[in-house]
């Protein structure tokens, strides 16, 4: 089953095209990685998919429901109510965590569930279960400022998972972390992949993308320059992809 479908996405800022024409789809249980140099439009693509940014053109479809559809060259979004329902399928993990600093670790994970209408009891037991599986139980009463970057990122993953999304997006989840903390967060994402969580990951961690992904997209200048299975992409003849992947692995 297709969880996400993006058709001919276009997005520009002040007349400067950032995403020129991108189509992709993600099936249930698949991991899609998006790689490419800085400024290639990866993050913008992710922000369009998670509706933090409005697209200028193209279709955005979750589980067969149109969040946005191109009509007469314009991008028309679904009603507020429809978007709200569609958004419930989406989780997003930010590069710089964006935890709520005034909430304890536990409350960071519980509060959004209460907003979603869960009972306090259910929300707390779900939160405790996630904290346990992420090895954060001892930190439940701490505040984000008391945690390492790796711990903060794991809390933010727990916060997203608590809402039981059908698809989880990661926007360079380890770019703000040192190698040790990076490993700690990547382990969690690998664990999720082994549980067949559907994920879209924007990353600069090539080895990680190669190991984990079912499909990799290489983006540059707002286009998909190359895509394929990790095996295909890493053994490509495409000189540009070779040099990018090679530089990062060197």
């Amino acid at each position, binding site marked *: 089953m297709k969880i996400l479908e993006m058709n001919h996405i276009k997005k520009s800022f002040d007349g400067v095209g950032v995403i020129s024409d991108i189509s992709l789809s993600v099936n249930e249980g698949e991991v899609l990685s998006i790689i490419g140099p800085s400024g290639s439009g990866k993050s913008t693509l992710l922000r369009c998919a*998670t509706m*933090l940014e409005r697209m200028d053109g193209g279709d955005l479809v979750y589980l067969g429901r149109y969040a946005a559809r191109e009509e007469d060259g314009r991008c028309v979004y679904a009603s507020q109510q429809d978007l709200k329902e569609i958004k419930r399928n989406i989780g997003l993990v930010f590069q710089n965590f*964006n*935890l709520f*600093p005034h909430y304890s670790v536990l409350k960071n994970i519980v509060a*959004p569930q209460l907003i979603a209408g869960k009972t306090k009891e259910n929300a707390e037991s779900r939160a405790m279960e996630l904290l346990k599986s992420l090895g954060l139980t001892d930190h439940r009463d701490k*505040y984000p400022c008391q945690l390492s970057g790796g711990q903060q990122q794991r809390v933010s993953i727990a*916060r997203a998972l608590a809402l039981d999304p059908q698809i989880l997006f990661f926007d360079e989840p380890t770019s703000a972390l040192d190698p040790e903390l990076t490993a700690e967060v990547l382990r969690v994402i690998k664990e999720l992949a082994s549980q067949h969580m559907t994920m879209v990951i924007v990353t600069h961690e090539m080895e990680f993308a190669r190991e984990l992904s079912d499909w990799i997209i290489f983006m540059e200048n707002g286009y998909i320059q190359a895509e394929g299975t990790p095996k295909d992409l890493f053994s490509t003849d495409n000189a540009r992809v070779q040099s990018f992947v090679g530089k990062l692995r060197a």
Partner: protein
Amino acid sequence: MSLVTVFTQLMGGMGITVAIFLLTLLFSMPLGMLVVLLRMSANKVVSAIMMVYISIMRGTPLMLQIIVIYFAPYYVFHINISSSYRFIAVIIAFSLNYAAYFAEIYRSGFKSVPHGQYEAANVLGYNRSQTFFHIILPQVIKRVLPPVTNEVITLVKDTSLAFAIATAEMFTIAKQISAKEASLMPLMAAGLFYYIFNALVAWGCAWIEKKYDYYRI
């Protein structure tokens, strides 16, 4: 003339001073929030009107504003001013003036909350008002407490400006006694009163600030 006698004579004025202080805070703090929300609204006309309002309030003397608000009903609308309007005019002028300053302080608070907080709330399913009340406002309050304290302390001393329309607040009375007795002592006593008042205000604000110390931003 003993200090005790002076304080007894100043007593009635102190009540008015404290009343101006408390009523001004009561009205100007929420009004400032309304002003800043309109100031930051996407509607350019509304935002521009608020900018003009803030600019006038900050750009002209509070004393002049008090006088204008007191006399405007008579000179502009030809309504006879009753003596009970005197105190109301003081409260209106102070509230409008301080709301402008508070609005700018709040604005700096809103600007300093990272955009990522709004985005995280959005992705987690918070609607606009939930985002504002649960996520943004608590962080804004923590950030604006020090400058708000400063402004509140200034307000304690600014209450003396009410003399401009002959409101018998404490400093006005102190000046009258001082002139009559040819002594500086009543003024010194008034100074002592402001100092103690402000020490209490500072202590109260520090206490609130401490309550918000449990997390860092």
